[in-house]
C-alpha cells in the first residue's frame, strides 16, 4: 500500500482551514494499557511497535525519543502538532516517529500504546484520514490490536473506544469572532456533538483566532461516515459563515477592518521586541487582511508559515536562542525580514 503523500491538496479552504488531522488510537492485544504497564511491559510494547514501524521504510519516519533528545526539539514537534503536550510530559518509555513533511506521525506509549496521526493541510481531512489509515493498515499486518466485535478498538479511555478516531481541524476564525458569532458557532458544534477547543487543545484559549474542532463520537459510526459528516455538515458551514462574516465586515465596516489590518502590519514591520502571543494575534489580523484582499504583496502561505515560525520552539531551533528577551528580539527580526519592514539602522536614522 502506498500512502498518498504526493497528492495535491488545493481545495480552496486555505483562507479558513490551517491543518486537518486524523488520529487513530490503537493498543496491543494482551498487554496492559500504558497507565497500568510496568517498566518491562512499557519497554516491550514500545520496542514491539517501533520494530514493526522500522520494518516499513516506505513510511519515511524520523525518530524522536523524549528521554534523550533535546527538549527544544520536542517543542518544535509540539508546535507542528506532531506530538501532544501529554507525550512530552515525563512518563513511561515513549517514542515518536514523524515525517519531515509533517504528513504522518506516530506516538508510542502516550495514553494508548499507539497513536497514528495523519495530516492534510487546508481542508485535507480526507487526505489526513488516508495518511492515517494507510499507516494503520500497514501496521495491522504486523501487530495484533486489541479489538472486540461490539466495542471495536479498545482504548485506555472509553471515550475513544470504537474507531478510535479523532478527526480535527485547526480553523482560523477572525471574521466570526469580530462579528460576535463565536458563541453561536460553539453551540452549533455542540449540537453536532463536536468539541471546540482553543489553539493547543483541551482547556486552552484561542490564540490568534485559531480554534480546534474535533468529533466526540467514536462508536457506531464508521470513519468515512464521520469524515463525510464533519466535512459536509460542519466544515463547509463554518467556512461559509467565516467568509460571510469577512464579507460583511468588508462591506459595512471597511475602515474599521482596514485600520486593524494596517495597524497589525505596521506593528509587525516595526516592532523591535515581539512576544509569542502578541505576534500570533497580529499575524492573525494580517492573515485576515490578506484573505479579504486588503493586503497584497504578502501571501496567505507566508502568513501561515510565520504563525508557526514565530513560536518559541521553532525560533529557538532556528537561532539557538533560549532566553526570553533575546528571543523576543529575534522574533521581531524574523517578522520584519519576512514582511519587508525597516532595519533598526534605517529606521533610526
Amino acid at each position, binding site marked *: 500500500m502506498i500512502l498518498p503523500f504526493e497528492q495535491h491538496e488545493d481545495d480552496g479552504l486555505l483562507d479558513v482551514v490551517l491543518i486537518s488531522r486524523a488520529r487513530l488510537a490503537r*493498543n496491543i*492485544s*494482551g*498487554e*496492559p*494499557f500504558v*497507565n*497500568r504497564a510496568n517498566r518491562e511491559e512499557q519497554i516491550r510494547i514500545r520496542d514491539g511497535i517501533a520494530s514493526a514501524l522500522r520494518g516499513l521504510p516506505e513510511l519515511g519516519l524520523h525518530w524522536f525519543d523524549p528521554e534523550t533528545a533535546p527538549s527544544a526539539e520536542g517543542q518544535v514537534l509540539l508546535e507542528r502538532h506532531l506530538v501532544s503536550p501529554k507525550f512530552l510530559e515525563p512518563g513511561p518509555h515513549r517514542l515518536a516517529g514523524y515525517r519531515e513533511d509533517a504528513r504522518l506521525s506516530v506516538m508510542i506509549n502516550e*495514553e494508548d500504546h499507539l497513536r497514528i496521526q495523519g495530516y492534510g493541510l487546508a481542508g485535507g481531512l480526507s487526505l489526513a484520514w488516508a495518511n492515517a*489509515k494507510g499507516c*494503520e*493498515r500497514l501496521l*495491522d*499486518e504486523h501487530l*495484533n*490490536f*486489541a*479489538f*472486540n*466485535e*461490539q*466495542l*471495536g*478498538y*479498545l482504548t*485506555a*479511555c*472509553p*471515550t475513544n*473506544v*470504537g*474507531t478510535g*478516531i479523532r478527526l480535527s481541524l485547526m480553523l482560523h476564525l477572525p471574521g466570526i469572532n469580530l462579528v460576535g458569532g463565536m458563541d453561536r458557532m460553539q453551540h452549533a458544534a*455542540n449540537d453536532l*456533538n463536536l*468539541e471546540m477547543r482553543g489553539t493547543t487543545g*483541551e482547556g486552552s484559549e484561542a490564540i490568534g483566532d485559531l480554534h480546534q474542532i474535533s468529533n*466526540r*463520537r*467514536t*462508536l*457506531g*459510526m*464508521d*470513519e*468515512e*461516515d464521520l469524515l463525510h459528516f464533519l466535512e459536509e455538515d460542519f466544515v463547509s458551514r463554518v467556512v461559509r459563515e467565516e467568509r460571510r462574516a469577512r464579507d460583511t465586515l468588508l462591506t459595512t465596516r471597511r475602515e474599521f477592518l482596514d485600520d486593524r489590518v494596517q495597524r497589525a502590519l505596521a506593528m509587525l514591520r516595526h516592532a523591535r521586541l515581539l512576544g509569542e502571543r502578541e505576534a500570533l494575534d497580529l499575524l492573525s489580523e494580517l492573515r485576515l487582511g490578506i484573505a479579504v484582499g486588503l493586503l497584497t504583496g504578502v501571501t496567505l502561505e507566508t502568513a501561515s508559515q510565520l504563525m508557526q515560525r514565530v513560536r518559541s520552539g521553532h525560533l529557538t531551533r532556528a537561532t539557538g536562542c533560549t532566553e526570553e528577551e533575546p528571543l523576543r528580539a529575534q522574533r521581531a527580526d524574523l517578522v520584519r525580514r519576512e514582511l519587508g519592514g525597516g532595519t533598526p539602522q534605517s529606521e533610526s536614522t
Partner: protein
Amino acid sequence: MNVLTCNARLAARNVDPECRYIQSAKWAVCEEKSGEGEGKLRATFREVLEQTYTEVMQCDECGKPANVHEIRVENGMKTERHLCSECAAQAGLTAQEAHVDAPTNPVEMIKQVLAAGPEIEVRAAPECPTCGSTFARFRKMALLGCPDCYQALQVPLQPLILRSQAAEVRELPEHQGLRPSGFKSPSQPTKTLIRLERELQGAIHAEQYERAADLRDKIRKLNEGVEPPDLTE
C-alpha cells in the same frame, strides 16, 4: 400531573462550582416521566439543583444530606421533597438512572459523574481478572487498565460509554468501521445472540419484565439451534 424524580448524585458533592460543565451536568440528572410542560419542569428543576450546588440539602425527614429529590407539579402548584436514600426508599421514591441530555466534554463528564456518585461504586465490586483494575481506580484516573477491563467492568462502564458518545444514542451502538484484518467475525446466529443478550440486560435494567421474558424465550430458541461455544479449551 407531571412528576420529575431524579438521582441528584451529581448535585451533591465534590463538584467544583467554577467548572463550566456543571450546566450540562445539571441537565444530566433530569428524568422525564411525562412529556407535558417539559420546559417549565426542567427550569424548575434546575433552580432546585442550583440551590443544591451551593448548599447540600438536608433530608426532609431525618436531616441527613438529601440525595433524592422530587418535584411535583399538580394543577400549576409545585411541591418539592428532598430525602436521603433511606427515607426515599421508605417513601417508595426511587431515583431513576441519570441520562444525559446535553453532550459535554466526555472526559470531564465521566470524571464528574465518577467524582460525585457513590452508587456506581456500590455496583462496581468486580475487578478485572487480568490486570486487577477496579471501577474505583477508573473513577480516579478516567483510564482503564487493560483491554479486558471492558468485559470485567462492563456493567458500570456501559452507561458511561453511552453518555460520552452521543446525546441521541439511547442504546450502545455496535462498532462500525475498520477492523483487524485477521479478526474473524462471529457467525450471524452468534451475533444475534449477542444482540439479544444485550437487549435482555437492558430490559431487565429498565424493569420491562414482559419484554425480558420475550427476549429470554428468543434466546432459548436460538440456543437450541446453535452449538454452544466450547469453553473448555
